[in-house]
């Protein structure tokens, strides 16, 4: 989820931290490559000096080509490196593995310290990352530098069973199947029971929600209900300037999802409503459902210059002057209109319900 428009600098912050992580990984890798080259040179140089004590070191490689039981080495390809070359490798590797393990332990202790002293999320994450990452790196480096075996070849067994195995299994199966198949009545009854169970399971779905008719066609506005703003203020003829708008609700259900209505004031003579809706927009006050007919988002934006309502979810636009017909974007149906009239106290009232059920479309929509 990203909607950090309100915090533009936070976004930049994110990129910097992403850069820090990716850059950190790349940098450590570069350091590792450079160090490994340098160390290899150093150790091979030391290894070549006469009377080197390397043979006495405890870094003995695993017994290389010594035959093991079960013919384990018969099918094994061991990388053809000589014993002394491998010893040099091991010394380089040991430096890395030990450093990685040390980093992991140090970072782990660091995490504990930060945690118990109530440190920031960044320090917690950073130390935990170094601890996990150090352990991961240590294991990979261990395998890479210190394990002798490089590439092995294993034969695959053919996947299909042999003809004999198949025939044997099928003979056994059909011997049993004939006993079942003979009992036509019992197999039929088994099927009937299973059918009932299936019907029960499907029926239980009914418990999960009310019949759609109960919530698909709610009576939203009733004739005579006064329009009020989100704070409960009634709307009179001088509430809005031409070109401005406000979100309104029925007086007794502020915040109602289905009843949320966009009340806009336009120049009365500019309206091009259908004939049967004449008189629905007194003094240029025109009201449409605020729930988008496309995906149900609130159609919360109004562009004065173009007289368009805009849904910020998928950018459908609706022409305020043309009974909220969709003009661009994915919405196909006009926003339902709410007929309005002015009561004897001068307040705007609903003259009935919306022209259609508000919200996204469905199969049974009139």
């Amino acid at each position, binding site marked *: 989820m990203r*909607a*950090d428009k309100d915090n533009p600098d936070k976004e930049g912050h994110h990129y910097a931290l992403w850069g820090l992580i990716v850059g950190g990984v790349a940098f450590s890798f570069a350091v590792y490559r450079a160090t490994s080259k340098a160390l290899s040179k150093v150790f091979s140089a030391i290894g070549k000096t006469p009377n080197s004590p390397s043979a006495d070191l405890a870094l003995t490689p695993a017994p290389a080509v010594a035959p093991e039981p079960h013919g384990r080495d018969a099918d094994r390809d061991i990388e053809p490196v000589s014993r002394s070359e491998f010893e040099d490798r091991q010394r380089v590797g040991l430096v890395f593995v030990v450093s990685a393990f040390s980093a992991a332990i140090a970072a782990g202790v660091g995490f504990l310290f930060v945690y118990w002293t109530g440190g920031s999320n960044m320090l*917690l994450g950073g130390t935990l990352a170094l601890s996990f990452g150090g352990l991961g790196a240590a294991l990979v480096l261990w395998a890479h530098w210190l394990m002798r075996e490089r590439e092995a070849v294993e034969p695959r067994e053919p996947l299909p069973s042999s003809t004999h195995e198949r025939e044997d299994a099928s003979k056994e199966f059909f011997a049993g199947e004939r006993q079942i198949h003979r009992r036509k009545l019992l197999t039929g009854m088994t099927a009937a029971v299973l059918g009932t169970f299936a019907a029960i399971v499907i029926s239980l779905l009914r418990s999960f929600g009310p019949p759609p008719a109960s919530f698909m066609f709610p009576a939203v506005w009733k004739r005579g209900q006064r329009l009020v703003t989100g704070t409960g203020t009634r709307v009179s003829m001088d509430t809005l300037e031409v070109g401005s708008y406000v979100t309104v609700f029925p007086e007794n259900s502020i915040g109602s999802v289905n009843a949320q209505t966009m009340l806009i004031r336009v120049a009365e003579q500019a309206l091009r409503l259908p004939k049967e809706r004449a008189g629905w927009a007194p003094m240029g006050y025109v009201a449409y459902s605020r729930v988008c007919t496309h995906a149900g988002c609130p159609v919360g934006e109004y562009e004065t210059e173009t007289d368009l309502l805009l849904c*910020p*979810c998928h950018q459908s636009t609706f022409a305020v002057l043309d009974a909220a017909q969709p003009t661009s974007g*994915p919405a196909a149906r006009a926003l339902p209109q709410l007929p309005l009239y002015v009561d004897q106290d001068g307040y705007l009232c609903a003259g009935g319900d919306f022209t259609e059920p508000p919200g996204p479309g469905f199969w049974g929509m009139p």
Partner: protein
Amino acid sequence: MIGFLARWFDARLHLAKTARRAFDHVFPDHWSFMFGEIALYSFVLLIITGAFMAMFFDATGAKVSYDGSFKELVGISVPAAYRSVLHLSFDVPAGLLVRQMHHWAALIFIGAIVAHLARLFFTAAYRRPREINWIIGVTLLILALFNGYFGYSLAGDLLSGSGLRIAYAIVLSIPLIGSWLASILFGGVVPTDVTIPRMYMAHIFVIPAMLAALVALHLGIIWRQKHTNYPGPGRTDETIVGSRLWPTYTAKSLGLCFLVFGFIAALGGLVQINPVWIYGPDNPTAILPGAQPDWYLGWIEGALRLFPGVNLRIAGGLVPEIFFPGVLLPLFVFALLYAYPFIEKAFISVDDKPHNVLRLPYEQPFNTAFGCAAFICLLVLFFAGSDDVIAVTLGASVVTIREILRILFFVAPAVTAVVVYAGCSMWQRRSESHRHLRSLARPEFLAVTGDPKMKDSAARTTLPG
């Protein structure tokens, strides 16, 4: 100690022979084989962090007054779920770290699955005998998408509320049964009292249980069939080349596991994700401009925005415009993914033989061109999912950007397909003539390597004269 335990278990389970064979199990070494493992280890981390979070989450949509330590929202009426998320983020030690790691792990989990799927597709790893695992894999992807969506819909913040209303509209749009389905799934017009508890149960139990079972099956089948190998000297359909399970592969794979954990911990600690306290609590009459879903639903979001507003009625029933991009498109995409191995073997390569050596992308121009075109198609949709942000960034109107993307949706994949097909064919011809020349120069070469791919290409090439 190890010896004692080994004897103890072997005396009860007769394990020695199995273990001996398991130690020698060979796993191939190639960077592209790690995507599946990354997905597996992010899943493990999701379960660990998710279990931690579940201890604090209150799966209730009812409104309560916020009274925690995030000052800006104190006294505001918020869903109880939202309050518990803020409590975890601000008042539980390391709570924010775990929460952000969970969200990042989810994004990486799905990303790794998609990368894994692309690797399998472009190397034709779905061919016999691996069709079953392809089907399980596609199912895992679908489940992962749903679970990711349910997860971010739980927090009771404004963005997840908007997402839920869109999902409700999509379910509602299904012809004939849409409103029944919406009632069964959501219990009425969202948000109802049952919406969050139901999604929570699906998110932490039903779908993870299915994921875990299918992951186990997926791995079991890989173990049985063994991995594929990239083509190369000594790689044949009858062998597998790589590292043995014990000790090399164990060390490498566990190492990768902790590297994945470390990377996700770095993201969770350093890079903020889903700051629900900035979005505010859910409010069905409010909306955040510039809202987008998590990356893996971007293509559906984009399709919702690009699809034209057609008002279609069939037999008196309304088929809302959102049905086509919201329901039919994903159904089509996943049906195609499920069916591709079977379509490929029946119509494209006309080959039902078992294969253990992978095909390289340039060796299968049609598949590669098709895959690239499909990818570009989804990429255009993905960008369409933020067409408003693009329009603001470029200073253009949304209508213009939308029209351009609509054209690109058709043109870009077509161009991609032609270019990729031509490129692969050229590459293929070149490498075949190279091999042909080599085989003419050294006839004994083929016999020595015993590489069937080489033999094939030599057989396909007509000798001059």
